[in-house]
Each structure stands twice: as C-alpha cells, then as structure tokens.
C-alpha cells in the first residue's frame, strides 16, 4: 500500500464504507429476496476490494503482479454486474412477455454490433487490448441497458424508483468507464504525468457516487408487484396491422399536405 497515493487510499476507505452500507440495506430492507443476483454482485465487489487490498499490500500497488491479479478478478466482477442488471431488467419485463422478447432481440442486435467493433479494435492495438476489451464490455452493457430502458419508456412499463436508481447507477458507471479508459489511453500516449492516477480517481469518485445513490434508493421498499392481465394472442395479431394501416393513412395525409405546398408556385 506504500505506493498507493493517500487520496486514493481515502477513496478506497469511503468506497468500502458505502458498499458495506449498500449491502446492509439490501439485507435490512429485505431486497435480497427479490434481488439475489444484485446482492451477490454487491458482496462480490466487497470481496474483490478485500482481495485487491491484500494483493496491493503484498506486491505493491504498481507491481506487474498486482496488475495481473486485478485483470484476473475483473471478468468475474463484470459477469456479476451483467447478471445483476439482467435480473433487474427481468423484474421490469417479467409480466410483459411480448416486450421482454422484443427487448432481447434488440439487445442481442445492439450487443453484437458493439462487441464486433470492440473485438476488432482490441486486435489492432494488442498492448491496449485489455483496456479496450474492458471499454467494449462497458459500452455494450450501457448500450443494451439504454435500449431496454427506451423500450420501457416507449411501452409505458411501470418502473419502481428503486429499480430506476439501480439501473441508472449501472449505466452511469459504465459510461464513466468508457470515457475514463479512453482518457487513460490518450493521456498515457501523450506522456501526461500521473495518467493512471487520474483514471483511478475518476472511476473511484463515480463508483462512490453510484453506491451512495443506490444506498439512498435502497432505504425504501419496492412497491407491491403489479401483474397486468394479458390480452389473448389473437388481439395483437388482429389489431396491430390495423393500427399500422391507420398510421400509414395519417402519414399519407401529411405527405400529400407537404407535396402540395412544395409544388405550389
């Protein structure tokens, strides 16, 4: 820990306290029943912090061994994050099977594009491949989350404020990682002093902010589950094409409106 800057140590301590508060609230307010994977994610984050503390104490903060250990533990944390977010999305969509299926298709399509791009750019810069892969993961994660939330808004699916805070926190943190990783690459290549520290500070400060927002949200219980009554499958099959044809007709009115105006001398 001797090589770790004092400000970063302070941020680590604060982060540890806030994460413990989140874990405490998850259990105290019985959120763990509805959110088992999220509970595992929070607990895993704390375990990862403890593991890295041990590694930094024994090998030094800037040692190659510490870096290697960090990157070994990171995929596990990212997997836990993806599972926790999927669990939250499932809770939002579980009573809306049609929209849930649509969301999966959209998320799969968006993720494929982003992953393909991330893989291609990681291959072109082998020295930065881990950082680029990490950025690619967070970019995919954020894009998938935003796509899902856009569908939630579009179809007016009710979302409890607790879930909103949790999903928002995940997305804010992932966007920060995307920006921070890019900044680190640029600063390092332009030989900017202490670029690694800046990267650490940005990620830690945002991570603490997200954890604090989560702690504030998790103080409240999740509202009672609302299960809407579904239509029979034939309703959509009959009504959707009809509504679309009406929408097309209204569109045609505007189109003719516009064409007449443009053609007028």
């Amino acid at each position, binding site marked *: 820990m001797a090589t770790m800057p004092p400000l970063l140590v302070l941020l680590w301590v604060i982060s540890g306290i806030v994460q413990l508060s989140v874990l405490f609230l998850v259990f105290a307010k019985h959120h763990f029943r509805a959110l088992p994977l999220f509970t595992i994610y929070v607990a895993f984050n704390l375990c990862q912090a403890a593991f890295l503390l041990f590694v930094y104490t024994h090998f030094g903060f800037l040692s190659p061994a510490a870096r290697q250990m960090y990157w070994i533990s990171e995929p596990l944390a990212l997997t836990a994050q993806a599972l926790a977010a999927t669990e939250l999305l499932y809770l939002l969509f579980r009573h809306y099977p049609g929209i849930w299926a649509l969301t999966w298709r959209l998320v799969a399509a968006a993720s494929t594009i982003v992953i393909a791009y991330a893989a291609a750019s990681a291959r072109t810069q082998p020295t930065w491949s881990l950082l680029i892969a990490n950025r690619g993961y967070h970019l995919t994660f954020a894009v998938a*989350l935003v796509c899902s939330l856009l569908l939630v808004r579009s179809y007016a699916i009710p979302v409890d404020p607790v879930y909103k805070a949790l999903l928002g926190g995940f997305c804010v943190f992932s966007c920060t990682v995307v920006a921070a990783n890019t900044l680190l690459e640029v600063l390092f290549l332009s030989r900017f002093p202490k670029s690694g520290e800046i990267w650490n500070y940005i990620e830690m400060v945002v991570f603490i902010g997200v954890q604090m927002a989560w702690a504030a949200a998790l103080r409240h219980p999740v509202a009672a589950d609302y299960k809407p009554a579904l239509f029979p499958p034939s309703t959509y099959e009959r009504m959707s094409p009809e509504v679309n044809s009406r929408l097309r007709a209204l569109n045609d009115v505007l189109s*003719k409106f516009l064409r007449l105006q443009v053609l007028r001398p």
Partner: protein
Amino acid sequence: MTATLVIFFSIAAVLLLLLVWSLRAPGKSSGAKFDLASLEESGRRHATYFALIRQASSPADMEFLARRGSRQIAVRVRRERRRVALVYLSQLRDDFKRLLRLARAVAALSPAVGSRQELERLWLSWQFSCRYHLIRAGIYNGLLPIPQLGSLSHVVSQLAVQMENSMKELGERAAMAVRMASTLDGNGVDVA
C-alpha cells in the same frame, strides 16, 4: 487520438442523455398501472373536421378581401388562417399519438409481439414527426403558403370516416379484450 477521445466522450454523453430521458417519468405513465381509459375513447377524430378547415381556407375569401376590404383585415385573416392550419395539424398529430398509445398498450399487454410490426410503427412515427415539424415550421414562418386544402378534400374525408369507425372499433375491441383477460385472470386491470 483526440478523435478517439471526442468520439467516445460523445457516445458516453449521448448514452447518458438517453438514460436520463428514458428514466424521466412521462406524466402519469410512471404510475403503477396502465391507463387503458383512452382505449375506449370514441370522441370525434380530428380528421373529420377537414370540411370546416377547407371552408375556412377558401381562396375566394382572400380574393374578396383583397378587392374590397382593407389591407389590415387581409393580414389579420391570413394570420388567422395560418393559426387554424397549425391547430389542425396539431390535432392530426393528436390522432396519430392516440393511435400509437393504443398500439403500444396492446403490444405491452400481449404475450407475443412481432418485431416487424413494431419496427414499422417506429418508422411511421419517425416519418410523421419529420413531416409534421417540416410543415409546421414552413407554415409558422410563412415560408410555405397555407395549402389548398380543397385538393386534399377527397383523401381526407375518406380517411376521416374510416378513422372515426376504426378508432371506435379498435378502442372497443381493446377494452373488451381487457375485460375478458381480467375475467380469465381474476386480476383487475385499471381502466379508470
């Protein structure tokens, strides 16, 4: 390198903006239940007022005013006509939005939805929005003349009748489906 920074910072910023927009409560829709009251609305569609709008924008009136009335009155009438055209446009948009709400409510409460239908609706919404804003901006700024609505009369009056009937029918059908599903499920849906 700077380009990479700009690109990724922009992507992150756009994603954050979309996140804020998607999480912002859109009026009452963030409430715990669907508002299905609009499915049963059977009020007149705005497209049915087309005949009145056509009458209000008759070019003969303008010619008469230009000949006999003062310049001031002609200007005022032109301004009023513009206002009427804009109001009519926005009412058409309301009709469009009501149909969209209906379609989305039906999709949300269906066990399976078709990607093609949903994508088509997205495309139609985008098209409608572009055209609406283009026409509105044109009329508002006086860049486009108030259209000869008479030429559209046939199309719109036909559509108006269809809209009036189909909206009513669709709304009734959706409401009936809600009631049937509620009975089968034993779970009430708020249609208030």
